[in-house]
């Protein structure tokens, strides 16, 4: 277990000291959210209606940006092979990697979402559910994205391929994330059910992601 915490701490430290990955993801999030009104027109009623969708989709894309780097650096300098040979199962290594990604990229993006929601004139009553739905849904983004990152680790043209593989897997997360916010916007409540399903999806991803990606990593390092 101590190996797990060490790895997690190391990855978080790396993410913090490098800083650029988180900064790029946040900048990307801001720019996509800012560009959409330019394409859709400045009508605030329209923007507040589609704000949940914009905030969720832009966050998916921003998180996707940093997923490609999940194993890359460790594979290049050989530390991934050392981890594979170590006592800790590769599945647990994958959990640490995804958890570090969630903490270092997912959480900052979630925290940025309410600020960007101001730009889109989102109803103030939905802010709480917006943050909650993102908080519950983003682990699914990190852990499903883990599969894509592991599968495309040594692929040619990895980045684009990663998006093609991973985005279809995000469909359920996206649907229930947005339905929770819309339920809160409608004022009738009922967002609780969507949040529960979202939590179930995230928990499923936490199980499936590490198993599939550890298998993919083993095959590539043979």
């Amino acid at each position, binding site marked *: 277990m101590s190996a797990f915490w060490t790895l997690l701490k190391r990855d978080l430290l790396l993410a913090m000291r490098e800083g650029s990955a988180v900064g790029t993801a946040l900048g990307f999030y801001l720019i996509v959210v800012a560009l959409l009104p330019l394409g859709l027109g400045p009508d605030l009623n329209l923007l507040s209606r589609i704000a949940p969708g914009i905030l969720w989709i832009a966050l998916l894309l921003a998180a996707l940006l940093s997923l490609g780097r999940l194993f890359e650096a460790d594979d290049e300098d050989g530390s991934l092979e050392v981890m594979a040979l170590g006592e800790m199962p590769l599945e647990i290594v994958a959990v640490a990697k995804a958890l570090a990604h969630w903490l270092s990229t997912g959480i900052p993006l979630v925290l940025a979402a309410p600020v960007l929601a101001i730009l889109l004139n989102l109803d103030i009553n939905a802010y709480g559910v917006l943050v909650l739905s993102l908080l519950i849904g983003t682990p699914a983004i990190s852990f499903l994205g883990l*599969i894509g990152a592991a*599968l*495309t680790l*040594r*692929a*040619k*043209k*990895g980045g684009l*391929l990663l998006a*093609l*593989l991973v*985005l*279809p*897997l995000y*469909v*359920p997360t996206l*649907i*229930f994330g947005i*339905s929770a916010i819309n339920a809160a916007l409608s004022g009738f409540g009922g967002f609780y059910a969507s949040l529960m399903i979202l939590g179930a*999806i995230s928990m*499923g991803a936490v199980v*499936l992601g590490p198993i*599939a990606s550890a*298998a*993919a990593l083993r*095959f*590539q390092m043979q």
Partner: protein
Amino acid sequence: MNTQSITQKLANPTRFMSLSGAILPWLSVLAALVLTYGLYLSFFESPPDYQQGETVRIMFIHVPSAWLATMVYALIAISSFGLLVFRHPLADVSAKAAAPLGAAFTFLALVTGSMWGKPMWGTYWVWDARLTSVLILFFLYLGLIALRSSFEDETLAAKLTAILALVGVAILPVIKFSVEWWNTLHQPSTGLTSSVHLDIRIPLLVMALAFTLMFFAMHLKAMRNEIMRRRIKAMQRARVDRVGASSVASAESSS
């Protein structure tokens, strides 16, 4: 010998080649005959629907394609399982050959569906649950093909694609559930239950059989092609090795 199951016996590519070579002509002829009969039934024998008119005939292509779209994915999933768990040598050949065919039938289901949707629903495309889940299935097929093509090492590509196919199996039901919950306009599948009149049901059944036979004929052919391609590649590699060794030898003897 009798203790071997059929799948074990087929693990020998040479045996598979001779067996499939014997079956393939018969299967192809049978598929062509059933397809001709099915097309005749759908275009001349079955009446136009009282509501849908002549457009109901699109169904005779659409429903079998949609059925194959899911069946082929199941076949790929079983093959992937066979590759990862039993390391069956033909499992990957089967999965590789099936992916483009499955993508093609999924595409056909989407196109015929939208051609039917224009006169019936008034639009080529609606964001309905079934349409959306078939579209996502199509994306998964594209992902399988793209992932396989982006690795030089074919055995590695096979294993990684198999992982993706199995992940897809785990996630497809969730996707289907979520989009159904999200929006439903498409009529639920009647399948081939009695709510469909016999005059429509029989051509539909014949067409479904014809499409399935056609798929298996194409799948067998594609598998045979893949095995031959691998043999040719192995022979070329062996020749390069031989030529390389002899040129080294001649260079050494002349010096």
